[in-house]
């Protein structure tokens, strides 16, 4: 096949000039989907105003020193619908998500703040259940709920309940984990079966009853990260592939580190029931959200040891090497398909929408 397409740089593809991505007059849902539009909103609207050396890293949290302590600091908001789903609820998610953002900086999570925005009319029992769930998740994780805030808005001005949590953690001496450190030759590991969270949520929303109910994988990953760091190996990047899924997370890393990634589709662990649900719903599991999985970039020589450490941890039992970092095609993730072909896996353009047939 011959191609005479104009030469395009990764920057063009990802939303810098000349793509007219920013010509939306208002915010649409896809601005929050973790894909290209989200990135564009941050790059074009938020960063120019907020710019500083901490935020520019565009990691899951910021790492800085106060005195001789290295701290990680992060924040995240939770607006999931439905608020209760198989495997968890919005409260549990709000603890795990922020704990995981800290863990992805290599930090030990210590303190969380919790802010509620509650829609008038939320049943008190639901609120109690959520608060209890937050406390249980915090206890299980060993973080202290240090401060909080509660606001109530008119009926219809929010969807039942929104939660924001911020977190502070301690980063050990010598730990340097950030997307920019991805290096050519690094192996890429995933900690287990992907796409369960998004599919659990979608199944409830679509009213799909599967023979084996698919539960969200929501879980705190700091213990698994401890286990990885305990190998003493130099871990370059950790990332939890939440919104936008594995591909959006990997795409982002290729951008910030200026490297290319080669993925092997057949090595990516996906449960059969999730695969089946994705087929039914017309979704690609690579773009579906996870809430209890991480991606690790480690030097090839350390991959075996790190993989073994992950598999020895209950949350990493099904860990696998799924790809590697290459100097070819910087800025892009190229995947060897199941049948031996290949394709680029790109960030989502917007919301992932089910296809007609």
């Amino acid at each position, binding site marked *: *096949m011959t*191609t*005479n*397409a*104009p030469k*395009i740089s990764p920057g*063009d*593809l990802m939303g810098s000039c*000349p*793509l*007219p*991505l920013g*010509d*939306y007059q*208002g*915010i*649409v*849902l*896809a601005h929050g989907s973790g894909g*290209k*539009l989200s990135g564009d909103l941050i790059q074009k609207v938020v960063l120019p105003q907020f710019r500083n050396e901490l935020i520019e890293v565009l990691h899951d949290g910021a790492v800085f020193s106060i005195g001789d302590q290295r701290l990680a600091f992060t924040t995240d908001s939770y607006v999931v619908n439905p608020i209760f789903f198989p495997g968890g609820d919005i409260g549990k998610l709000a603890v795990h998500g922020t704990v995981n953002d800290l863990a992805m900086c290599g930090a030990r999570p210590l303190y969380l703040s919790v802010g509620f925005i509650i829609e008038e009319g939320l049943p008190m029992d639901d609120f109690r259940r959520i608060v209890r769930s937050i406390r249980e998740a915090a206890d299980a994780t060993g973080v202290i709920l240090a401060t909080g805030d509660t606001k109530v808005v008119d009926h219809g001005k929010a969807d039942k309940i929104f939660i924001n949590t911020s977190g502070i953690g301690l980063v050990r001496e010598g730990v340097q984990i950030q997307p920019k450190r991805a290096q050519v030759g690094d192996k890429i590991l995933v900690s287990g079966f992907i796409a369960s969270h998004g599919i659990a949520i979608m199944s409830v929303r*679509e009213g799909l009853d599967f023979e084996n109910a698919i539960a969200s994988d929501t879980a705190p990953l700091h213990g698994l990260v401890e286990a990885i760091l305990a190998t003493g190996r130099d871990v370059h990047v950790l990332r939890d592939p939440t919104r936008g899924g594995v591909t959006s997370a990997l795409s982002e890393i290729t951008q910030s580190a200026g490297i290319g990634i*080669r993925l092997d589709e*057949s090595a990516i662990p996906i449960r*059969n029931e999730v*695969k*089946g649900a994705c*087929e039914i*719903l*017309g979704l690609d599991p690579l773009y579906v959200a996870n809430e209890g999985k991480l991606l690790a970039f480690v030097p090839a020589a350390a991959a075996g040891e790190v993989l073994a450490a992950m598999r020895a941890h209950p949350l990493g039992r099904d860990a696998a090497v799924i790809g590697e970092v290459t100097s*070819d*095609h910087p800025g*892009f993730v*190229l995947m*060897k*398909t*199941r*049948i*031996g*072909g*290949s*394709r*680029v*896996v*790109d960030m989502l*353009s*917007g*919301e992932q*929408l*089910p*296809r*007609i*047939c």
Partner: protein
Amino acid sequence: MKYLDEYRNEAMARKIADEIHRLVTRPWVLMEVCGGQTHSIVKYGIDHLLPEQIELVHGPGCPVCVTSLEMIDKAHAIARRPEVIFCSFGDMLRVPGSEADLLVLKSRGADVRVVYSPIDCLKIARANPGKKVVFFAIGFETTAPGNAMAVWQAQRQGIGNFSILVSHVLVPPAMEAILQSPLNRVQGFLGPGHVCAVMGYREYEPIAERHRVPIVITGFEPMDLLEGVLMALRQLETGRAVVENQYPRVVRCEGNQAAQELVKKVFEICDRKWRGVGSIPRSGYKLREEFCDHDAERLFDLKDTEKQEPSICLSGLVLQGVKKPHDCPAFGTQCTPQHPLGATMVSAEGACAAYYTYGRHLQLEKKETAEA
């Protein structure tokens, strides 16, 4: 995964590809009719397994792509009304009309909902008796029975607040139009598996005969597509031109007769304008007179307007298999899935969008395949 992994097996794929390499003696141009097939081909890199002599060109079978701009504008005019709950298949939401897309209308307060089946709309209609529930009934023969069933049930159950905006299109007239075009290059077809699951494949036999083209009714998994290519190639190399069925696990010669009867009861054939191609006689369905109470085009006062597509866009030629997406100067630069200039960039199943999504404009894969 059972019944799926078997059709995505690397060793089997290599085996069929080897057979294709062994058989081919000269260049051939094959068209896969369906957008779903195009999507699979590009997603799995199936064309990279084929010999250079076999060129796959992408057909008009992306229902979202070929829905005319005028019809999309009508849909938007309906969706904007405060009394309407507008329901659609998911991938229609991003398709731009003249002014906006359904996602933007939703962000401005329109009640736009994604449904997986038009039957779901009946539930929505029953639960919202004060609202008018409208379903955007697009698609080929594949989606027609579901849409017909929704209307038929609405009438039987007296659900008066449900209607559909019909923009159905039919495959055989489009194939005829392609074959009759002076620009035609297509020498064989991978026929539309799911359309034929409904309609059977008798109506393709006169086309194969009249135009001397092999038509192999083909499925959507990698194995299906490779086998479809192999079967079409065998015919071409031996000078045969008949209809064959690669997809017997889903398609029977006579199709699904109950579905066909229902479609006939509810719809009648009409002329239809295709985005990027123009009007093709007797190439669509419209609701029969007795179901006019459920016909959104009649219920809402909608103006017919003539719309022009951007002149740089080659989507009409891409839909007819005359051009490839990357032949277009706007492809990947002025025209992207975020800012589509034409039909084939608007849906995931459109050839241009599939090429873009899977990075075909980046020239990375060939190199990678050579290394492998």
